[in-house]
């Protein structure tokens, strides 16, 4: 039936109900993100000629991410990438037995998200990730340096938070509609509700594709790659700290 953002169908009683998101949007998102990132890379390449100075990675090291947080990050990243691949593979015509891998990765992501929320709330500096009104001027004022996370990182984190929570909640509802080792499906959710769940899951998947692509792109950018190194090894240099962060707002301990 009609295609736009939403696909509709007739249910068993002949009523029009939501079927899910229009997967043509996957190609729209893919092309749009690709063009935006290429444009960004081009602009940055032009600007890089003017500013070649980069802080040194040598010298004393400070701790940016604890080992447990790095594990959380990479496990979450792996599960999200597996979820995106297994979720979109049948849509783009790949014939693989994707469903079991998909729900197992989904369960792993769900547990990781819950564990991360608990740890961030009680053991980490939760405030360091909060986006406050004053943070919004940071991108436009080069004299302002951030604490542990700068404005764009916080923005990305909260966008990913909203999207991942949406994809997890709708995913769990969908998970209850299939057979698993834990239960037999009941297949009893009304079609209109099921369609809404599929729609929200599809929309959050599209957003996740866009955010994951953007995140990976920035993680690989030469001027940001030390953050990726810090997510692998845990440390950044004092020089990198001084060039990008305000020690008054973030005073990390020295690395061993």
């Amino acid at each position, binding site marked *: 039936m009609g295609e736009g953002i939403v696909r509709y*169908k*007739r249910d*068993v009683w*002949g009523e029009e109900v939501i*079927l*899910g998101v229009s997967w043509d949007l996957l190609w729209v998102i893919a092309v749009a993100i690709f063009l935006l990132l290429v444009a960004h890379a081009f602009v940055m390449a032009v600007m890089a000629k003017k500013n070649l100075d980069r802080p040194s990675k040598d010298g004393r090291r400070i701790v940016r991410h604890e080992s447990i947080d790095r594990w959380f990050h990479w496990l979450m990243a792996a599960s999200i990438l597996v979820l995106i691949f297994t979720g979109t593979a*049948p849509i783009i015509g790949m*014939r*693989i*037995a*994707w*469903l*079991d891998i998909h729900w197992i990765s989904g369960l792993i992501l769900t547990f990781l998200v819950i564990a991360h929320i608990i740890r961030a709330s009680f053991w980490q500096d939760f405030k360091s990730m909060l986006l406050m009104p004053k943070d919004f001027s940071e991108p436009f004022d080069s004299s302002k340096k951030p604490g542990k996370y700068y404005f764009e990182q916080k923005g990305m984190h909260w966008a990913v938070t909203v999207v991942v929570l949406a994809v997890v909640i709708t995913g769990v509802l969908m998970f209850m509609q*299939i*057979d698993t080792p834990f239960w*037999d*499906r*009941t*297949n*009893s959710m009304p*079609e209109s509700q*099921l*369609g809404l769940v*599929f729609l929200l899951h599809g929309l959050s998947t599209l957003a996740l594709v866009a955010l994951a692509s953007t995140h990976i792109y920035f993680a690989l950018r030469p001027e940001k790659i030390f953050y990726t190194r810090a997510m692998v090894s845990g440390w950044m240099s004092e020089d990198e700290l001084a060039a990008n962060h305000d020690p008054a707002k973030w005073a990390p301990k020295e690395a061993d």
Partner: protein
Amino acid sequence: MVATSHDVMPDIELYQPTDEANALDLANTLGSDGWILAGGQDTFGWLKDRNKNPSAMIELTQIDAWKGVREVDGGVEIGAVTTLTEIAEHPLIQSQYGLLATAASKVASPQIRNVGTLGGNLNQDARCWYYRRGLDCYRAGGNICYADSPEGLNREHALFGASRCVAVSPSDTAPALVALDATMVISSSAGQREVAAEDYFVGPARDIVNMTVLNEGEILTAVRLPSEWANAEFYFEKVADRNVWDFALVNIAAAMKVSGDTIEDVRLACGAVECVPRRLQSVEDAVRGQQRSEQLASRAGELATEGARPLNYNHFKVPLMANLVKRAVRA
């Protein structure tokens, strides 16, 4: 869209190629718009009900190269456009591969077998009545299986391998070909590839829309039967609600090499219990090298149904399947 039955075919382009290259070219050019037509026994229902709406049909019945039974190096090759009657009555098939001759003779009715082809019987779509009715179920691109809902009627549906969709493989010849270790010859304008019969059929976990490995532009053009299983001891039995013009509730195909009372080698496949013909490897392993006995047959029946997950209305298929396997091993 729910089915609306019409007595007439929709307006559709009809291509009737007379040679292989032309047919493969058309299949390649038309892609998903080109519906492959052989005997039409699966096709006409879909098209008259307007539940599938291809813009063109490619009729294969005038391609002589894809018809008939011929001896080849290492066995026998059957063109995919050969009618089921011809297969059931062919002396070579009857004498050497009686399993397939019997299976072909059990398909539907004499009238249907006279026009229905081997390729059509193997490639026919799922016969789940919700799907055939035109409801937007999982298999039709939706997000629900009506047959597996609390009110769903699923007497004919799957015991094994359900993954959202619970439709079964409806073919009688498919389990026979799996038991005979046949090879499917798939042609396209890019060339030819061969796939073991066992791997030709695809379950919903891997592809919920298609029931075979055929890609767009590909046509099943022949089936090869290996000489290894020629003249073995065969058993085929089909249980359906009617003896004629009906799909199997369960069918069983067995090929055995027996010496004295000892089963030296065996291949068993069961139809209508899963979305693909279910090869019974655990049963084969259990009976291979064993002396035939009532006890062995009973054990085989029990093994065959291990892991079955009946739906609301198809519990009867479990003892039915067990008994058919038992009879095949005991025969």
